[in-house]
């Protein structure tokens, strides 16, 4: 007994605290980023064509702040973002709107499912780069090609998720609604829409991630400004730190968008699910409400 206690005491000491800090959610995340930076630094030490983290961050700092440097116009960081974001937003908005309509139709109708489900699978399997090439061939340079690339790449992900959502509306609740003669409008508003909401959010997250990938590819081939175009600019100029720097920016943007906006929206929509109480809390509630079973 005393040995066991001693062991626990040792575990609870300084090494335990470090282990807890490293394995906690935030700690683990920071540790993984530091590890990646370390690996990156090591590779850059032995490989000339690989810029070091310091070079890349230094470059980004100049890209964000400086006016002009060595004859190359810089400091256009925000302008390029300002060019990309409306294309991205429009592409995602169209894919979500059409994705929801298509998803409801395919999810609710057996005939529509038989007709279009395979088409949707083919669309899911097509990589964004194919659309980037095709829209450039069809439409030439400009916003249209970029927006349509984004839409075509993101749309099937939105639609497929909505299809699953519509097919997953609980049969018991549908029967309950018909037994009580609930009106079509109320069923739509309070049963069908909320049942599908979770799937719409899943679709939105997929659409945003795939769409971001697609908007950059679209800009790579069809734009003359924007985040995707800017990374190509540095790539074509053989400035690897510029290219890698912009790749980092893409990643950072999508991670922040997902963590700060999408996850929060999703949590808000699922307030009812998070309201789940533990058995002990529930018992306390029952006592408070004076409705215990006995």
């Amino acid at each position, binding site marked *: 007994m005393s040995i066991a206690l001693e062991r626990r005491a040792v575990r609870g000491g300084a090494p335990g605290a470090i282990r807890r800090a490293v394995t906690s959610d935030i700690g683990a995340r920071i540790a993984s980023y530091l590890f990646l930076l370390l690996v990156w630094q090591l590779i850059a030490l032995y490989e000339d064509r690989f810029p070091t983290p310091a070079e890349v961050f230094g470059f980004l700092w100049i890209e964000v702040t400086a006016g002009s440097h060595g004859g190359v116009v810089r400091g256009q960081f925000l302008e390029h973002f300002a060019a990309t974001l409306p294309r991205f937003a429009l592409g995602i908005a169209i894919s979500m709107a059409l994705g929801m309509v298509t998803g409801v139709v395919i999810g609710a109708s057996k005939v529509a499912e038989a007709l279009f489900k395979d088409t949707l699978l083919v669309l899911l399997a097509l990589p964004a780069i194919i659309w980037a090439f095709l829209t450039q061939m069809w439409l030439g340079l400009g916003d249209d090609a970029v927006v349509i690339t984004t839409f075509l790449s993101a749309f099937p992900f939105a639609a497929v998720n909505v299809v699953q959502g519509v097919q997953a509306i609980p049969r018991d*609740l549908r029967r309950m609604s018909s037994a009580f003669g609930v009106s079509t409008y109320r069923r739509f508003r309070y049963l069908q829409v909320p049942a599908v909401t979770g799937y719409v959010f899943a679709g939105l997250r997929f659409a945003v991630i795939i769409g971001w990938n697609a908007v950059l590819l679209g800009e790579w081939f069809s734009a003359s400004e924007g985040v995707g175009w800017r990374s190509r600019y540095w790539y074509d100029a053989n400035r690897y730190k510029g290219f890698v720097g912009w790749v980092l920016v893409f990643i950072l943007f999508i991670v922040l968008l997902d963590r700060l906006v999408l996850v929060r929206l999703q949590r808000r929509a699922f307030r*009812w*699910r998070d309201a789940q109480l533990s058995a002990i809390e529930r018992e306390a509630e029952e006592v408070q*409400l004076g409705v215990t*079973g006995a």
Partner: protein
Amino acid sequence: MATLRVDHLNKTFPAIERGSESTTAIDDLSFELSGYVFVSVVGPSGCGKSTLLNIVSAIDAPTTGTVSVFEGDRPARFGYVFQDPRLLPWRTVMQNMLYVQDGKGSDAHDHALDYLGMVGLEDAGGKFPSQLSGGMQQRVGIARAFSVEPDLLLMDEPFSHLDAITARSLREQLQEIWVRTKKTVLFVTHDVMEAVQLSDRIIVLAQGGRLYADIPIELPRPRRASDTAVATAQAQILQRFEAMQEEVEQTRGDAEVSAAP
């Protein structure tokens, strides 16, 4: 309060696979109930109890025969309590109550609150179903069914998924509400004891959906599970029920003997 008339009702389900036989769920069933009465339909599983309820509530159609429910000359309104609570998980208790109401606004809200009060949940309106225990959720289901002021209230084994103590307390509460609101109730259960405690009349179905017995229960209310009179009646009915089971097994045995080569 409605009149329910079941007239030579038959329901057969077609064979699922080629070569298998079709199943008779209800076999020439006739009965009638009317007014302020609590009627239970009891029988072993597979005797067509739930099928009967589905046909009465027009979820399913009869093969032959008729089922009519009327309230004067207008179509009757139904209330339904299911085995599980069937609440919308993303709506609060109050919003679940309002989901099935015709009206809106503060009147509908007060109306719903009255019925939540009857099951002791007037303070739970703002909670989500996941915050309530199974028994409390089923109370909401009962309040919801009464709140539409149904002419005919259909209950499909509403206490079968609850623990014994919760089920017992809900049975007593159901009796109180029923006495207060005076509804026509058709209650389906496989639990003979429960049927005796709650009902004015028990319709016993045998395997294959045949009417086996129609037994009046004349005991004063409120009836508690611990009352001697209730216990005595339960024992008597249970004996008849066992006799029926034996009879059925006997017939089945005879049929097997005569079918043997």
